[in-house]
């Protein structure tokens, strides 16, 4: 008998793209918005880069959206401040989940996260990857995926 293939981890991906000018306008028009969306650490990081503050904020907004998508919940699934992007000493952004976002991640058996941010040309984008202990039921290894007739669907 061939050795049993170890179960593949579930991988959940989320992506988002926002217009930098829109985030900047929202922030300018609504002084209370920054506190509702960004943590103190995020605001401080972006404020320390005044030339591109709006781009950094927009990228973090996109990151929060990307994580919500990867978790499979709508915008109302967690507070924006419960999803935090923290920059390591080398500048690499990492995710910190708190409150309901952390509870959702636990429920999805998330064991590892990664985030990638980019901005330019007036847009900011983010990709979130969540690696889960168990396989994601919506995701299949294409080498083994079959439809209900037993035919390979690759």
């Amino acid at each position, binding site marked *: 008998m061939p050795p049993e293939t170890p179960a593949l981890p579930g991988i959940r991906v989320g992506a988002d793209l*926002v217009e930098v000018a*829109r*985030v900047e306008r*929202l922030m300018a*028009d*609504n002084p*209370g*918005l920054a506190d*509702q*969306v960004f943590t103190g650490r995020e605001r401080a990081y972006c404020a320390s880069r005044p030339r591109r503050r709006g781009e950094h904020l927009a990228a973090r*907004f996109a990151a929060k*959206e990307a994580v*919500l*998508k990867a978790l*499979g*919940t*709508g*915008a*109302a*699934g*967690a*507070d*924006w401040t419960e999803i935090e992007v923290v920059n390591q000493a080398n500048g690499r952004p990492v995710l910190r989940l708190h409150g*309901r976002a952390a*509870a*959702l991640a636990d*429920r999805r058996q998330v064991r590892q996260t990664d985030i990638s941010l980019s901005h330019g040309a007036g847009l900011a984008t983010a990709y979130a990857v969540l690696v889960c202990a168990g396989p994601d*039921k919506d995701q299949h290894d294409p080498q083994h995926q079959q439809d209900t007739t037993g035919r390979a669907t690759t």
Partner: protein
Amino acid sequence: MTTTATALLPAVQEAIADALGIDEAEVLPDATLLGDLGAESIDLLDILFRIERVSGVKVTVADIGDLLQGGIPDEEFGDENEVVNDTGLSHLERVLPQFDRTQLAEPLTADGVLGLFTVQNLLDLLTSRTAASAA
């Protein structure tokens, strides 16, 4: 429609139309914000802040989430596949008067719940906030 709701309706319609760049006539009470009107989360944020500026009534996206889930823990609201279960559906039928589970074409998943939220539901939430702050 209550007096408060009638008074708030134009402000709500204008806020939604301006945030989404659509005509106010498209902002019908039974239109869903995300589905019918095409709002994204950043639009929701924009809409709610616009309403607060003109009406003074503050509602956050988290408040909408609290209304939709009613404090029911995630594991009691849906099953392990993130499909909203009987407890969740019963709650949604209580808080969203237009929602009827028998009309669902496919199982409702957690990420689809916000998509049920209509202009009227937002108006109702704002009205209840106004009443609560006046009490």
